[in-house]
């Protein structure tokens, strides 16, 4: 039964959190993740033969190591000197569009096939990245999508065909 926490401490705690560096947030996230991982590993089904080193041993070991490492990172990043967020100077629009477009690409690939989806991807993305000459990007997209498809089918590496049959 220790003394009840003093109010000032709590304020101090909040302050401390506010001044956390990004690394401390990452370290905390990692620590939680590694605890989860160790629990999942511990709950893996056991093999029935006693002489086998079982499937949970290695994961539990590295999970614990990862936990220790995240504590180390937490302690190591005591430096509370405020640094500029690395996000500041970035123009996220281009990257975000690329990720979104890729997601659409992956989603469409099995249904509309490699040639069409690759053509669309290669036609649109240069524009997003600031390329304004449509003629070049369209021709390039056509040649690359059909060329690679043909190349890989001659190499007997199947690429998705899609409903149109190519």
């Amino acid at each position, binding site marked *: 039964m220790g003394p009840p926490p003093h109010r000032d401490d709590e304020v101090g705690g909040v302050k401390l959190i506010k001044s956390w560096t990004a690394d401390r947030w990452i370290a905390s996230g990692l620590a939680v993740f590694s605890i989860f991982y160790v629990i999942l590993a511990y709950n893996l089904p056991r093999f029935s033969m006693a002489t086998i080193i079982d499937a949970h041993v290695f994961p539990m070991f590295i999970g614990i190591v990862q936990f220790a490492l995240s504590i180390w990172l937490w302690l190591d990043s005591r430096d509370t000197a405020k640094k500029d967020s*690395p996000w500041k100077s970035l123009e996220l629009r281009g990257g975000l569009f690329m990720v979104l477009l890729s997601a659409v690409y992956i989603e469409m690939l099995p249904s509309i096939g490699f040639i069409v989806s690759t053509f669309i991807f290669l036609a649109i*993305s240069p524009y997003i990245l600031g390329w304004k000459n449509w003629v070049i990007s369209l021709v390039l997209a056509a040649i690359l999508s059909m060329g690679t498809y043909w190349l890989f089918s001659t190499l007997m590496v199947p690429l998705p065909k899609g409903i149109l049959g190519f």
Partner: protein
Amino acid sequence: MSTLSMFLNGLQVAVQPVNLLAVAIGALLGTVIGVLPGVGPVSAVALLVPLSFGMRPETALIMMAGVYYGAMYGGSTTSILLNAPGESASVVTCIDGHELAKKGRAGSALGVAAIGSFIAGTLGVIVLMFLAPPLSRVAIAFQPPEYFALMILALVASTSLGEGSLIKALISMCMGLIIGTVGQDIQTGTVRFTFGNNELLDGIDFLVAALGLFALSEVLSESVEPNTLVTRIPFKSPYPTLQDLKQSFWAMIRGSAIGIFFGLLPGAGLITSPFVSYSVEKQLSKHPEEFGKGAIEGVAGPESSNNGAASAGFVPLLTLGLPGSATMALLLGVFMMWGIQPGPLLIPNHPQMFWSLIASMYVGNIMLLILNLPMVPLFAKIIDIPKPLLLPMIFIFSFIGVYSINNSTLDLWLLLGFGVLGFLMRLYHFPAGPLVMALVLGPLMERAMRQSLTMSNGNPAIFVERPISLAVLILALFFLSIPFLRARKKVKKSKIAC
């Protein structure tokens, strides 16, 4: 003396026009196929197996060896130019190779890689020629406990990849080990961390993580920085300068030696040697801070070592019948197709085969150098394509590479996920190299650990009781402590300066 005369006999076979042609075709196709995404040495050899049916055995094998070599050469090209490693052996090349390319020195990097590969390949064949039978004992001296120690060493070496603090490299490495445990456990069949998804049973392929963390994250980083999109890279010389060659000569020699030694160990050599070589170069360098920002030795060493390992990998294959990698397993299949059983009796029973293969390796190496050097300025120009056109192409390149492994769209989602993860890791200075490395090594390490513990009935002392394993572990500890020693030295120096 008899070795020499047999070699000369072999050389006579190797320079027959039809065999020369076979080497040339093999090397050329290998290089081209090696450049394509997802079509590494394994698929290159697999694709050409049917083509070899009509040939004489020597000719067919000579062509296969050419393909294998060529694909190894070709693999480094995409690493340097697009930051897209096609196979595990060229992950390390990305790190400094692509930085050099971004500085307009793609020609230097490609040229040094080609020359380093040539030197290592040639040295490797010399070793194979004179020392194959005695060296085969090395392959057998390394048993599960030694492999475990070796994995520890390689993981420690991997933390020297890229800049940033040791702790972040270790966390990144550990994350790689964790990702490596996804899938069905090969020993017990227990399914781990797949969350019911059947496609994850075989784990997450290395290429998914490597292309995501390197190629895609590079593209994402560049596409969010508006300035880099318009800036053209100042194109420096199309070939390495004399200064480059001088600077990287010893790195090539050391890389070759490391590669040849590790290549003797089936299973681990090709993957681990470039990492160890990189680490060694960084530790020995007078300017370790340049590593990760475009140090030419960081390309020369690892590229030499992976080719050294590729040639030395023939030692366990030809003398013991132990394939050291997937490609080697395929070559083993090719040998058997011709009714030749690779193993202890190959050299005594088929001397002509062995010696003409050796001789053709020399020829192949020279031919690759002749083929590749003129290509360097050509390839180096790829980096000159306007960014808005080039970046989407790298995306598609990675997508195809990943899709062709398993024909699975889940892999593509993972690829994209790794791309975003890699982008975030860059922002917060977590190096990606250790993660990719640990993903490759983790399963090998786990297997070695469990085999060892089964051998010792569960007693972990087995790792320190065996001399080779103990020595390797001590070496690993030494590598790990170097950053600390360096830091202390620096502190001392600055004190003296005060």
